[in-house]
């Protein structure tokens, strides 16, 4: 009967090689990118011909983009860099001007009585507009809202709106949103869906 000694040791030296091989595979296939983007909510479809309630002209900020990626804001040609300031001025209407949106007193938590403007931004683009331009316009409009929200959150809470969102302080975020509600309306496309 053969004597049983200790079993022979398995050489573990190549284990590192195997692990390296797997490591390299996962290093190569991994994509660390987080998906970033502009979040938007589409309006629900209009099923029958519903009369849209009339909106006063002074409450609407009309942004048109044509096929050559040119901007027409409230009847004037404008460069994309100027859009943010113009939108901010329109949304806030600090001087209560006649041609800028009306304001209505509203009770907002944390803020008390606030004058909330009845602003709506109307965005219409051409079928030939480039997607890049469209995103730039959307981005500038979103930036206008965010800057105003940051300002008011800074005044009231001492922190920016972005910080509130990040901290998940839902009540305060909601209050700030109530003061400056984001209303970007996209016009119903006219020649889309033809069959």
């Amino acid at each position, binding site marked *: 009967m053969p004597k049983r000694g200790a079993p022979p040791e398995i050489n573990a030296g190549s284990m590192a090689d195997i692990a390296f091989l797997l490591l390299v595979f996962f290093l190569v296939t991994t994509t660390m990118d987080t*998906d970033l983007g*502009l979040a938007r909510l589409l309006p629900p479809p209009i099923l029958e011909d519903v009369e849209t309630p009339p909106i006063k002209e002074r409450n609407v900020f009309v942004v048109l983009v044509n096929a050559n990626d040119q901007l027409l804001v409230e009847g004037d040609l404008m460069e994309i860099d100027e859009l943010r300031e113009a939108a901010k001025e329109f949304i806030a209407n600090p001087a209560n001007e006649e041609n800028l949106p009306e304001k209505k007193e509203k009770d907002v938590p944390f803020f008390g009585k606030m004058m909330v403007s009845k602003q709506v931004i109307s965005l219409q683009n051409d079928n030939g507009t480039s997607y890049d331009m469209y995103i730039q316009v959307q981005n500038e409009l979103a930036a206008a809202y965010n800057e105003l929200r940051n300002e008011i959150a800074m005044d009231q809470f001492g922190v920016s709106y972005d910080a509130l969102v990040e901290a998940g302080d839902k009540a305060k975020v909601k209050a700030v949103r109530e003061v400056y509600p984001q209303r970007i309306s996209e016009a119903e496309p006219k020649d889309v869906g033809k069959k």
Partner: protein
Amino acid sequence: MSKFKKKDDKGGPGISTASLPDIVFMLLFFFMVTTVMREVDLKVQISQPEATEVKKLENKALVCYIYIGEPVESNKYGTKERIQLNDAFATPEDIGSYVEEFRASKDEAEVPLITTSLKVDSETEMGIVTEVKQELRMVYALKINYSTRERLDR
């Protein structure tokens, strides 16, 4: 007399590599856990536009992707922008059933949380994008996300 003198071992004791596999395994597990396999092969070229006001897309399992751009194999498919759903080209009419299919694969309670991510090339004309948006409205897939890269300046 030997020509090759045996070098006497003067260096210190060799560094033990026994813990090397452990370290490598640690890295390996990290990458195995964080890795996300690309779910589709892109058949369209997409260079995303840049924006500053970006938000992170949360809960990737509940994101339904739509790709729009010029076909990669332009000699075969031409240079007109196409829509890609899953692994195939599609027309705007297919989007409704695509979204419904995606919803059916998810839990009912999670359906309202589904976001549709539009990955569109920046050179694309808005016509096709608007058509896609109209189709999404028809099936009440109203939460959308225009996928962009983050621009850090300004």
